[in-house]
């Protein structure tokens, strides 16, 4: 690239030379190659700095600060620096820009426009420290009714005559979203799987197959059948908590998985059954599912293969038409339906689709729940919703809008040490999370990470109980779709109508 087309870096690496001990620990910490030592002082190549803070955190003298570069961009309301940079980069590379994390556009977060109800006088609130408040929930299809037969001779002799669809018991209404081995590291996967096993919840496997080392945690995993069919074998189907057919992902509706070749190490190559360092780009559609009836056949095939002992689900991205699609998916036999909103995370996605396609999860939950109710099939299915459930408040609002279970991914990565530098697609994660380089992977301490994930969800569950107690509810199933306990406090009452909630003051 000629000097004429230089794009100024976002960050500036500042070293307090008075404090610096010249130990070069920061140079070793930087996995992006931004730092070097010239014999006299630390030198930064700011073009390479991603602002991950690893060098600053590990500096023994606390001599490093990363600051935003103060380069001026002539003000313009339409051609913001972001838009200018996108065009400059594309003119330089001629390619589709890859990004990660989730949608970073400043769209309004509807969760923040919703407030919660609490009890006063007429019904007593419940103190979860002194009284039981239950958060257990079951993942799977539910029968529409139960059949009991009473002995005509003795009415206290009762027989239950129902058929039982398989259900998986979760200790709290939350699961860890699908992040494949490939998008995140072996240690990150191990930490998540161990943590969910100990918590009594589930995690998604992502579409990257299942490494043998993770088999002991299979009982708490939902394995994913994606369009690439990576790593799908007998062990992938057997003994898991659930199986999910991935049709779409909130961060990139209409696209398949993207694993850049940089991240396809020998471990990934073995697990996914693909050549080393090759890009693993899943087909956009499943090439055996071009219609809803094809989906129904795959669901049926998976149920047959697992002898009707495992709940089978389908994940779709939240798009305009989610409600009728969801109805079709439920009628096609799905035991659970996962909805992924347009702020959902990704290890790598084309920026254009990450930032512009799909709809917010709040609206998708409300419209899907409503549609399934209108058709009388809501109780049949477990509705899992994710894509920007950022903390317990979002989880609570998602459930009150109509979800059964919240799907959460980025908060888990934050718990284990992610600094949100949004470079997952580069494969150089300095924190050992979204990388496959062995020297970086080993930076992530599994045991510490397990404890931090457990702490996080324990805290969420306690906060859920606090809110339920304040609402006078002692079991989470009575929060589900209880939209009467929500009010809208935002700029657009039309959104409140679509969410089926009243405006504040009503």
């Amino acid at each position, binding site marked *: 690239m000629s000097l004429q087309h230089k794009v100024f870096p976002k960050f500036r690496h500042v070293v307090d030379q008075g404090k610096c001990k010249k130990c070069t620990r920061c140079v070793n910490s930087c996995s992006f190659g931004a730092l070097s030592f010239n014999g006299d002082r630390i030198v930064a190549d700011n073009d390479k700095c991603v602002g991950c803070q690893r060098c600053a955190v590990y500096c023994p003298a606390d001599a490093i600060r990363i600051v935003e570069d103060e380069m001026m961009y002539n003000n313009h309301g339409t051609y913001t620096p972001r838009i200018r940079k996108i065009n400059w980069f594309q003119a330089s590379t001629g390619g589709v820009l890859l990004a990660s994390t989730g949608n970073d556009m400043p769209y309004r977060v509807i969760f923040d426009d919703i407030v919660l109800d609490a009890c006063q006088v007429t019904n007593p609130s419940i103190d979860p420290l002194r009284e039981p408040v239950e958060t257990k929930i079951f993942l799977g299809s*539910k029968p529409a*009714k139960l059949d009991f037969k009473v002995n005509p001779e003795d009415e206290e002799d009762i027989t239950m005559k129902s058929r039982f669809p398989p259900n998986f018991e979760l200790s709290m209404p939350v699961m860890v979203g699908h992040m494949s081995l490939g998008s995140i590291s072996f240690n990150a996967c191990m930490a998540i799987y161990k943590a969910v096993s100990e918590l009594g919840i589930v995690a998604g496997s992502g579409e990257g197959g299942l490494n043998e080392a993770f088999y002991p945690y299979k009982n708490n995993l939902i394995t994913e059948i994606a369009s690439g069919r990576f790593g799908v074998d007998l062990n992938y189907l057997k003994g898991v908590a659930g199986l999910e057919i991935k049709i779409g992902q909130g961060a990139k509706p209409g696209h398949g998985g993207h694993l850049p070749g940089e991240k396809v190490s020998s471990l990934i190559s073995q697990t996914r059954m693909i050549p080393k360092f090759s890009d693993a780009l899943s087909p956009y559609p499943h090439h055996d599912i071009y219609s809803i009836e094809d989906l129904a056949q795959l669901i049926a095939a998976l149920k047959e293969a697992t002898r009707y002992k*495992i709940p089978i689900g389908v994940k779709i991205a939240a798009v305009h038409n989610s409600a009728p699609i969801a109805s079709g998916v439920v009628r096609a036999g799905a035991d659970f339906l996962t909805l992924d909103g347009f702020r959902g995370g990704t290890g790598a996605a084309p920026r254009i689709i990450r930032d512009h396609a799909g709809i917010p999860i709040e609206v998708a939950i409300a419209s899907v729940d409503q549609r399934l109710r209108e058709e009388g099939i809501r109780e049949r299915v477990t509705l899992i919703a994710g894509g920007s459930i950022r903390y317990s408040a979002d989880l609570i609002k998602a459930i009150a809008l109509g979800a059964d279970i919240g799907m959460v991914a980025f908060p888990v990565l934050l718990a284990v040490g992610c600094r949100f530098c949004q470079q997952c697609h580069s494969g150089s994660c300095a924190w050992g999370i979204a990388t496959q380089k062995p020297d970086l992977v080993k930076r992530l301490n599994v045991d510490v990470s397990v404890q931090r994930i457990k702490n996080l969800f324990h805290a969420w569950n306690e906060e859920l109980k606090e809110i339920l107690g304040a609402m006078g509810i002692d079991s989470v199933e009575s929060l589900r779709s209880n939209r009467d306990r929500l009010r809208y406090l935002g700029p657009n009452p039309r959104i409140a109508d679509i969410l089926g909630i009243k405006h504040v003051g009503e």
Partner: protein
Amino acid sequence: MKWENYTTYPSSFKDDKVFDACGISGFINTDGKIENGAKVVDMITCLKDRENGLGAGFAVYGCFPDQKDDYCFQMILNDMETKDGVKHFMEKHGKVTKEEPIDVDVEGFVSLNPPVLWRFFYQPDEDKTMGNDDDFIMQLHMKINDGFDRNAFVMSAGKNMAVFKGNGWSYEIADFYKIRDYEGYMWLAHSRFPTNTPGSWFGAHPFSLLSWSVIHNGEITSYGTNKRYLEMFGYKCNLLTDTEVLAYLFDLLIRRHDIPPTIATLAFNPPLYDTIEKMTKEQQIVVKNIRMAYRSAMVNGPFSIAVGSVIHDDPTLITLTDRKKLRPQLIGESRDGKTFFVSSEEASFQRLMISEENHAEITNVWAPRAGMPFIARVGTGLLRSGKEEPFEKITLHVDEYPPEVSI
């Protein structure tokens, strides 16, 4: 103070504080003996602290023995024109076998500003009901409530039973409807202290559907969940109060899904998971499946209810509280063991015991356990006292066991 005059409001109480509560009272003669409403009026009117003059009501079972096979529509109507409209609508689908104004003391209670109160006895056409009269009447009930611009409401539409309710103090409503002139083997009474919704004629208790009538003290915090669940089964929750979901939930689970009442009440009030883990394998399977399948029928928040019903042709009284028992409820049994009384407070029982005119010998009084049903039935007597464990006395079998988790 003369007890017999108590239904007219003692002047000394007029300026006291308002308390937040509702009162429930009722009784069932399990030998089927017919009694007039005097006792139940005494029981409810003495619970003065539990009402504020914004609603009261009564339900009586066995009151129309001469027309026991007809559905009795007790209507609240805005005017006679609406009455004609409703009649016309009903006659499209069946036959009004008899109609009459409900006998009320309008002159004595002008201040209540009563609406038109009318009674239809009704037989739906066989070709319209497709063999299921009850489902048809339920639909008709919902359509009338929904279809007349809030000018017509069904108080009750069951067979051989009636609900009388309105906006006023319980002693006013009792005298207004001349409750003491009706006779039946089961009575319910309610006095209201409305909090969530304004006091109104249609919003008073009991809430009724078919033969179900529910009186309720409490507030249902799961209302939104229950409402959205019931809407899937054709119920319309348009009476602006939480109690109606209870009537519909009882109808759905016990009548339409034919679940035995002892089991159905577990769906409304399921045992805690900690308790479930200590149960036998069969009990665990049953109760966990109830919690799964009927998770949206779980009723949360404080409540104490009494439910009048006719289950498989047998008049039955069911009472229930929430599983934390945040609202009071007591059961009293008569000396001969044939009559069972329920009330929010023991004062109702004592009122009868010291009464000369409406005397009852109530020798055994107990409080049902939190979340456990009391059930008594005409012809059988006491089925459950409310003091039992969830599955005590019940032999449970499971036809088909759920799949093991791993394969």
